[in-house]
C-alpha cells in the first residue's frame, strides 16, 4: 500500500515525469491541476508537450493513499468489495475502447507499488460532467433529447463484449451474489453499531427488508452473464451538445446481468430532481429500450429493468448508510458522510412506492 496522500501538484508532476517520458518520449508536463471529484479517487488534468511542440491533453486517475481495491477485509475497509484497482480498471477501459465504446483511450497504467500509487493516464475528453448542468443548461437541450437512446446503444455494445476478453480481475456478480453482498453490508453495519459504538444499538430498516423480500421473490435468475459497468449514470458521462462523448469511472465493473445497468440508470437519485424524465433525468424508458434493442442488445423486459431499479434504489440506500459507517468507524474523518446516512430514508420511501407499483 502506498502512503502517497495529499500530494501537491509539483510533487505529482515530479513523480509522473519519468513515466511520461518513457511512454511518449522527450516531453514536459504542463498545466497539472487537480480536478474536483470523488473522495476516494483523485483526478488530475495535465498536458504533455513533446519536443516538437505537439500537445496531448491528458487525465491522471489515481488512488490517494491506500484506497485501492478492497482488501481481504472486504467492505469493512471502506471500499465496495468487488471494486477494481486502478490497473485492472485501466485494462477494462482498454478492452471497451477497442470494442468501440465511447471511452477515453488509456496510454499507460502504473502499479500500486509506484510512488504515485496505482494510477493510469488517459486522454482528456472535452465536455461537461456535472449532472445538474447537463440536465438544465440550454446548451445541452439537444443532448438530452438523444441521450436515453444513446445510453441504450452504448450499453448494448458493452454487454455484447466477449467476456473472455475481459480482465481476469473482474468479479462475477450475478443477481444472487449482489443481493448477498448488500445483505451482508446492511447486517454488518448494524452489527458494528451494536457492538462497537458507544450508542450500542443496532439499526433496523423494515423498508429495506421489504425490498429484499420482494427482490428475492422476483429474481431474474436466468439472465445471461456479460460485462456490467456498475455505475452507468449521469455524473459519469462526459457530454457535449450532441450527446455523450465518453463514459467514465469503470471501477465498479463486473460480470453480471446487463439489465442492472439499465435499472441503475433509472434510479431516482440520478435524476437530480428531473422526475418527469425517468431515465437519468433526461429521457424516456421507451427510448432507452429501443436504443438497446436497435444496437443488438437482447429484447428488454421492462419488468426486469424495474427489478434492477428496485435493486439499485435499495443499493443506493444501503450505500448511504455505508457513507455514515465510514466516518463512524473511523475509516475517514468526514462529518458530511454522517449526514448522507440520514438520506437512507429517502430511498426507503422510493422503495415502498416502486414495490407497490410493481
Amino acid at each position: 500500500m502506498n502512503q502517497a496522500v495529499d500530494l501537491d501538484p509539483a510533487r505529482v508532476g515530479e513523480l509522473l515525469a519519468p513515466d511520461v517520458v518513457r511512454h511518449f518520449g522527450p516531453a514536459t508536463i504542463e498545466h497539472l491541476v487537480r480536478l474536483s471529484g470523488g473522495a476516494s479517487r483523485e483526478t488530475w488534468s495535465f498536458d504533455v508537450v513533446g519536443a516538437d511542440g505537439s500537445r496531448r491533453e491528458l487525465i491522471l486517475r489515481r488512488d490517494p493513499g491506500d484506497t485501492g481495491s478492497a482488501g481481504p477485509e472486504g467492505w469493512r475497509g471502506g471500499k465496495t468489495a468487488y471494486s477494481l484497482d486502478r490497473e485492472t480498471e485501466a485494462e477494462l477501459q482498454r478492452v471497451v475502447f477497442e470494442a468501440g465504446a465511447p471511452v477515453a483511450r488509456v496510454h499507460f497504467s502504473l502499479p500500486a507499488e509506484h510512488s504515485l500509487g496505482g494510477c493510469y493516464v488517459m486522454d482528456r475528453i472535452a465536455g461537461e460532467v456535472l449532472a445538474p448542468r447537463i440536465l438544465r443548461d440550454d446548451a445541452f437541450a439537444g443532448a438530452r433529447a438523444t441521450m436515453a437512446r444513446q445510453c441504450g446503444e452504448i450499453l448494448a455494445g458493452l454487454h455484447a463484449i466477449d467476456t473472455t476478453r475481459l480482465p481476469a480481475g473482474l468479479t462475477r456478480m450475478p443477481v444472487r451474489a449482489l443481493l448477498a453482498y448488500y445483505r451482508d453490508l446492511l447486517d454488518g453495519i448494524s452489527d458494528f453499531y451494536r457492538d462497537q459504538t458507544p450508542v450500542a444499538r443496532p439499526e433496523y430498516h423494515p423498508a429495506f427488508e421489504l425490498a429484499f423480500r420482494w427482490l428475492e421473490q422476483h429474481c431474474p435468475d436466468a439472465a445471461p452473464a456479460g460485462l456490467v459497468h456498475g455505475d452507468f449514470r449521469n455524473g459519469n458521462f462526459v457530454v457535449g451538445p450532441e450527446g455523450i462523448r465518453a463514459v467514465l469511472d469503470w471501477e465498479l465493473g463486473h460480470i453480471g446481468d446487463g439489465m442492472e445497468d439499465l435499472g441503475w440508470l433509472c434510479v431516482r437519485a440520478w435524476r437530480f430532481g428531473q422526475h418527469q424524465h425517468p431515465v437519468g433525468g433526461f429521457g424516456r424508458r421507451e427510448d432507452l429500450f429501443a436504443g438497446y434493442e436497435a444496437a443488438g442488445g437482447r429484447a428488454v423486459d421492462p419488468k426486469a429493468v424495474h427489478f434492477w431499479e428496485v435493486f439499485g434504489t435499495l443499493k443506493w440506500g444501503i450505500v448511504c448508510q455505508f457513507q455514515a459507517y465510514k466516518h463512524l468507524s473511523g475509516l475517514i474523518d468526514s462529518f458530511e458522510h454522517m449526514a448522507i446516512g440520514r438520506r437512507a430514508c429517502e430511498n426507503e420511501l422510493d422503495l415502498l412506492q416502486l414495490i407497490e407499483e410493481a
Partner: protein
Amino acid sequence: MPQDRATADELLAGVAAFLRDEVLPQLGGASAYKCRVAANILAIVQRELVLGSAADRAELAGLQALLGNDSDARGDAIDDIAVRMLQALVGQDRDECDTRAALDAGNAELCAQIRSGALDDRRAEIFAHVRQTVRDKLAIANPKYPALREHGG
C-alpha cells in the same frame, strides 16, 4: 429540572443562523459546501428535538398493533430477547419501558418476520406501518423530499 433558557431548539437555531448568514458568505469551494452541510445537520437535529419522541411513540404503537399480541403464536425466527421485551411492553405500563429498547425489540422482530416471509400475507398493513415510519423519518431528515411522481415515464 429544566435547563435555563435558551432551549436546545433555540440554541441550535442561533448557531445555524450564524453559520448560514455570517460564516458561509466568507467561504468558498469545499469549505462552503461543508458549511452548508453543517447548517443542514443542525436543522435536522432541531427537527428531531421537536418531532422525534412523538415519532418514536407512533412507531412503537404501530409495532405493537402489528406484532404485539400474537408474537408467541407466530414463533418464526423470533429473537428471544425481542419476545421478552415485547411481553414486558404489552404487560406493563408503557412509561416504565425504555422506549428505545422496545423499539429495537419490535423492529428486530418485524425485520425477522418480513425476512422469513411470515408477514407475506399481511402486506397492506405492513406497508402502511412502514410507510408512516418512513414519512416520520423524512419529516426530520429531509421534509422537502417529495413523493415519487413520474409523468410519462
